[in-house]
Structure formats: C-alpha cells, structure tokens
C-alpha cells in the first residue's frame, strides 16, 4: 500500500480525536486548512444541518400511577418509561451519525463520561435529555458555569440523591462525588469535614414538576455557616462550587481528565499539564483548554496511544459506511454498544466508563468483529468496491482515515482484496483503526 504523508497522518489523528472516526476527504480538508483554522471552525461552529434534522423528540409525561394502582398499570408505565429511555438513546446515536461536523457530539459525550449519570437510576428520559442539552450547550464555555449547572441539574440531583439532601438531614453523595470526580480529584487532600460541610451547602434543592429545572426551597436549605476547604460563610451551591474550583488542584484535575480523553492515555507530565492549564486560564475557558490540548507539542508525540472506545469506534465506522438512521438500525447500534459495555446514558458508575486497554478484551474482539461484519452488510462499500482490487487497500485506508497500514495488517487484509465486505470488516478491527 502507499503510505500517506506525515502531515496527512497527523491531520487524520486530529480529525479522529475531534470526532468519531475520520474520512479521507475530511482529512484532506484539514491538510489544506491547517490545524489552527480547522480548530477555530470547530470551536465557533455554524448551525449543523444534521443537528437540525435530528431534533430531540418530545417525551410526554408518564401516565401517573397512584399508590394503589394495579400491576397492569404499573407495568404499562414501566414499559412507557423504558421506551422513552430507548428512544432517547436512539435519538443521540442518530444525532451522532447525522451531524456533518461531529465535534460537538464528541465533546458532549466526553462530558457525559465526566459527569456520568445513568438511566438505571434516573429513570426519566426528560431529565436525561435536559442534562444532555445542558452539556452540549455549555460544554465549550467556562467550566464554572457548567459545574454550577450540574450541581442543580435534575438528572444529577436524582442520580446522586441531591433531592434528598436537606437541612433536616444531609446526604453527602453529590458533594463527595463533585469534589472527587467532577471538579477536584481525590488527591487534593480535602477532608471528610469538607465533604460534610459541602453537603450542607447543597441542601434544599427540589426538582420542579417538568423535570427540567430545580428550585431552592429555603426551608429545606441549611442557612447556618459552613466551612468548605477553608472558605467559611453561609455557603450555597454557588459558594460551594467556587470554594472547590478555587483550589489550586482543580484546574489541573479538569485539564488532566481531558488530556486523557483527547491526547494520550498516559497522564501528562507537569510541564504539559501546565500548558493546558494556561490555555484553560483564570476564566476556566474550555474552548481554550481544548485548543491547547489539540495544538500541544505532546499531541504529536502521543501518536497511536488512544484506544477508540466502543462509541467512538462504532459511530466512526457507521459514519464512514453511511449506515442509515432508521429506528431498526439505531436499535441495533444500541444493542452493540450495550454488548461492548458503552451504551450512552448507561455508564457503569459515577466515575464514568473505563478507558484504554480495558476495552481490549478477547470478548470485545469477538463482538467488534460481528458488529463490523453487520456494518459492512448494511453499509455503503461502493468506494472500496469501485476500486480495482490492487487499489483497494489504499481505498479502505482513505475511507477510514488510516494513513498507513503496517506490514502485518496489510498481509492480513491482502487475502480479502477480492471481497470488499471482508476487507472492510477486517480493516475496522485492525490495530491501526482501533488505536490512534
């Protein structure tokens, strides 16, 4: 096979890490424009026709079921709830497939992993959809606004028992996970007292009837002074958030987590992290952080280190093969993601999904192979089929944004040159496609 230029391979890496998969034409465009112009476009996006074509479906309120409702009524309500949650998942997968520029969805999915919230407990498509829209709307703004929104987000309040945290009795779940997983990191050295005081600051929020907002109920809120991380006062959720974000370690924590998602599985050294924190800046500018991460000198050094997680892998492959977005296809995609262990709205716990090598088990290899086979049966292989067999290795590389296949992989693909479906199936499971 002919190998693409180093510039093309670097551009392909940038495309893959700013979206789901890559395609030859998208990579060519970045080669022409250069990374700075490309990133500027991503961070100030124009309206995406694919997003406009996939509006969030309405989720009618669930039929109320009284305390003495019979079994049939309860089952009917559970079925309705389950269908709404499946519809929500299908909607997001359809959105990921339909957008012309997937950067916003990639970042939104990254925030979903960061503020991991699961349907299994929240059980409200309305609340989860609202959280998803909030993550999308605020995901490239400033982290303080985003973090504050999550502290009073209805789905989050259900997920981490914030609704049950009142002056009559604190529930520490949200305060603890906010510090440990969302904003500061376990290594910061905050104390159990900080957690307990923080929980008191977060007391009194109740979800409103529509499940898309929450209101502070003064009578349920602890009005007495608290001390969180050395800050004393009658702190509320904003005061708590600011006390946490003011810690010196907070910026490095957020930047470090995104470095892991976008740049490398290996944690950044101090100098690299400092450059990202500088991009993030005093205003906790997330666009600045992303720009700094993608343009950092370590980005080039960290080639072939990120293992594509199931969502990135499957959506990337489905986009490249232009599979449809009909209901049956979306349901099938959701089933594959459940099998591979990364179904959106279903993270395993509040710390989000595992990453990196955790995805590379033999069990996953088998599932990926089956999924790739199905994608190739339903998807569009014409770009590869139209090429002469001798050109097909180049064609599949261009189709998937892989700049070069190793000798091993080329040898493995060669027997399949006469069969485009087998060829693309194997290419989708190659180490070159799975690791970028």
């Amino acid at each position: 096979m002919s190998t693409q230029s180093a510039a093309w391979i670097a551009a392909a890496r940038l495309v893959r890490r700013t979206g789901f998969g890559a395609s030859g034409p998208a990579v060519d465009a970045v080669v022409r424009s250069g990374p700075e112009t490309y990133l500027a476009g991503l961070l100030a996006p124009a309206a995406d026709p694919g997003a406009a074509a996939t509006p969030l479906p309405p989720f009618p309120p669930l039929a109320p079921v009284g305390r003495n409702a019979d079994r049939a009524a309860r089952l009917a309500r559970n079925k309705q709830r389950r269908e709404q949650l499946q519809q929500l998942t299908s909607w997001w997968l359809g959105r990921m497939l339909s957008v012309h520029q997937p950067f916003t969805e990639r970042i939104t999915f990254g925030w979903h992993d960061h503020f991991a919230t699961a349907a299994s407990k929240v059980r409200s498509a309305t609340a989860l959809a609202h959280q998803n829209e909030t993550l999308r709307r605020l995901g490239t703004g400033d982290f303080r606004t985003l973090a504050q929104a999550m502290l009073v987000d209805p789905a989050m309040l259900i997920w981490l028992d914030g609704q049950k945290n009142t002056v009559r009795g604190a529930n520490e779940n949200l305060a603890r996970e906010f510090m440990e997983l969302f904003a500061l990191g376990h290594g910061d050295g905050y104390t159990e007292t900080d957690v307990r005081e923080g929980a008191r600051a977060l007391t009194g929020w109740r979800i409103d009837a529509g499940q898309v907002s929450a209101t502070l109920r003064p009578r349920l809120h602890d009005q007495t002074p608290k001390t969180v991380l050395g800050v004393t006062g009658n702190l509320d959720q904003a005061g708590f958030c600011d006390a946490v974000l003011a810690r010196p370690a907070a910026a490095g924590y957020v930047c470090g987590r995104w470095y892991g998602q976008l740049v490398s599985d290996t944690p950044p050294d101090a100098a690299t992290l400092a450059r990202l924190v500088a991009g993030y800046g005093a205003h906790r500018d997330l666009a600045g952080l992303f720009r700094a991460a993608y343009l950092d000198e370590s980005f080039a050094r960290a080639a072939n280190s990120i293992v594509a997680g199931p969502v990135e892998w499957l959506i990337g492959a489905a986009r490249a093969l232009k599979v449809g977005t009909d209901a049956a296809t979306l349901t099938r995609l959701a089933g594959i993601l459940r099998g591979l262990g990364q179904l959106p709205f279903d993270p395993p716990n509040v710390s989000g999904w595992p990453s990196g090598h955790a995805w590379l088990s033999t069990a996953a290899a088998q599932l990926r192979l089956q999924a790739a086979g199905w994608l190739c049966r339903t998807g569009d292989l014409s770009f590869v089929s139209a090429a002469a067999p001798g050109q097909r290795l180049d064609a599949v590389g261009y189709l998937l944004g892989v700049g070069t296949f190793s000798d091993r992989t080329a040898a493995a693909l060669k027997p399949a040159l006469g069969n485009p479906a087998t060829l693309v199936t194997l290419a989708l499971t190659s180490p070159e496609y799975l690791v970028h």
Partner: protein
Amino acid sequence: MTQLDRRRFLLASGVAGGAAVLAGSGVVTWRSLQDAAASRPLPAGQQVLVVLTLYGGNDGLNTLVPYADPAYRSARPELAYPAEKVLKLDSELGLNPALAGFAGLWKAGRLAIVRGVGYPQPDHSHFRSMDIWQTASPAEPVNTGWIGRWLDATGDDPLRALNIGAVLPPLAMGGRASAAALPLGARRTVPAALTRGLTALGTPEPADSASRALVRASYAAEQLVQASLATAGGTPEPGDQESPAGSAGGQGSLADQLAVVARCIGAGVPTRVYSVSQGGFDTHADELDAQQNALGAVDKAVTGFLGAVAATPHGAGVTVLVYSEFGRRVQANASQGTDHGTAGPVFVAGPRVRGGFYGDQPSLTDLADGDLKVTTDFRAVYAELLAKVLGSDPGRVLGPLPGAPIGFL
C-alpha cells in the same frame, strides 16, 4: 481513586506487566478450561478460594444487625430492623432478613463472621477504598492486587486464578502474571475468512505502539475462541432496575457467575482462586428494600453455589470470602439511606470454616467522627486465607503482618 488514577493503575499493570492484563493472562474459553481440566486436573486435596467483591459499600450494620443495642435504633429510627425481623445469631447480633441461607450456614457451623474489619485511616471514596482492599496496600497506591502478587509468587500456570468476566479487577493483576478471564455470554461462530483475518491481525508487528500491541495480543488469544459458556438471561434494559451511582457491578448476575465457577470446580479445572462480584450496595437513599434485594441475591447465589459444589470431589475444599469496600455511617441520613462509612463485617463460608464470630463488634457509641472504629485489619483475613486455603506464605504477598491469626480456618 479518581478516574485518571484508575486509568493509570490499569495502564501500569497492563504495560509494565508485559501486557499481562490481556496477553500474559489471556482471556480463556470454556473449552480451554475443559482441556486443562482433562490434561492437568486440580490435584486432590488442593483447596479453592472464591473471592466475592460487593461493590458500592455494603451497610454492615444492617447486614449483621446489633438488634439489641439501643444505640442502633436511635441512630437509625427509620432504617433499624426490629428485633423480631432479624435472624438472630446470639443475644446481640442477627442477620438481615434476606440472609436466610447464611443463617443456615451459621447453624451448620460453616459461616465465620469477622466483625469490624477495615484498615487504618479509612477513606470514604468508593474508588480509593476498593483499591485499598484489592491491592492490600492502605498506605500507598500500588499496581498489583493481592491475588496478583500471590500469582507472582507461586508459579507460572495462568489458570491458577480466574476472573469471571472479561475486565480484570485490580485484585487479580500481578506484576508478572495476572489472572485469566472467562467472559460470560453466548458467542456466535465467525466465518472462516474473518477468523483467519483476525488470526493474521494477531501476529506481532515491530511497528506496533504499546496500545496496538495490546490489540494484537487480544487477537492472538482470540485464536482459541470458538466456544464459551452460554448463560441464561440478558443484560437488563436501561430503566429496568436501579443501580446506584457508586456501584460497578460484575458482569452477569452473581448467580450466573457462580454457576460458572461451580462448573469449573466440578470439572476439575486447575484454578485455585476465582473472582466474582456484585454491585448495588451504594444505598444513599431508600436503603431497606435495595439492600435486601442485593443481599438476597448474594444469599441465594452463595448458598446455591456451596450446595452445588458440595457433592463434587473438590467441594470439601471450597471457601468463599465476601467483602465490600466499606460499611456505612452509623447515623442514617434523611433519605432513608446511609452515607459512606468505615468498618464492616467480612463473611467466610465453606465446609472447612470454623463457624462463629471473630473480631470485636465495633461500639455504636465510641465512634471516630461518626464512623465505626475498625477492630480487625482486613489483611489478617487475607493472611489466613493465603496460609490455610492456598498453602502460601502470606508474608510474600502482604508483607510483615502484626498480630496473631484470627482462627476461622
């Protein structure tokens, strides 16, 4: 432990350990286990340890209930089990009503309950506390688990420890060797052209990065894969059941996992340590029903498992360890739940166990910042299992240990 720290943990184990997580250990199949059982069965008299991890922080005080203590009731007005509901073990302590099978094991003298187990300077993070339990290193994070270090210290057969589920928990990762993994779930036959292609993709390639080498290694192991165990039931749909935010459950139900272990033991698979898990114990709210459901599943699965292996040749040498990363706060919160706490009971069950209580029951009034004081170091439990079940020197796995053996075996 944060996500990043855990990622680092996995990375260190995977890369520094020579790709141990996937390559050195490999994912095994039911067929390869059967082959091993046929060619080199577990020798008679070799005992088996089953480690059951309860994720989420099981509430010890509502598991082993101090029903006669007035402080129990006053700390948990709405969460306390009344005396008539608990399964009384003596005049002070009783089991959660969902643990009827455990109560039967107790009567038969085959259940040891070690009380007040924990570690110094308790950490209330699920993720850090679970790492401490699994690595047996409270003072500092390390990259190896206690079973992993036992593997490192005792030989080369990768089947000596087997995790049920494809993703290895930290306890099973060693520096040199790691546990094998048996994924649950049905498999379909793959067309020959794809199998051949995958085998070819599993060939070493000098140009591979570390991560690409791991993909390749997983495919090399895949060459073995044609058959595996099909288990009943599928993955629940989202919304089917609650899974609290802090509890990462195992793969498949515990009953499914233990059914596989029972089949392995029955077949004579040369595995000495099995790892299984269940989630659902992070009961910040509406605890009573949630914990009873979770404990009921444990009770049925464990007693069913012990019953199933009892009749097999190796059944007399099977011991089950049940633990969680921490207990919960003595005082209930306002949501009919409990927040993260410290010490909790550890259960050890099996035909070789000397039933009874071990370790002191922590006081409900002499607390450390609202939490129970630890009376027994968890490493003493591990030490006894290493010495008496696995016949190994605990010092090689756990380092120097203070104190006398607990005596439950």
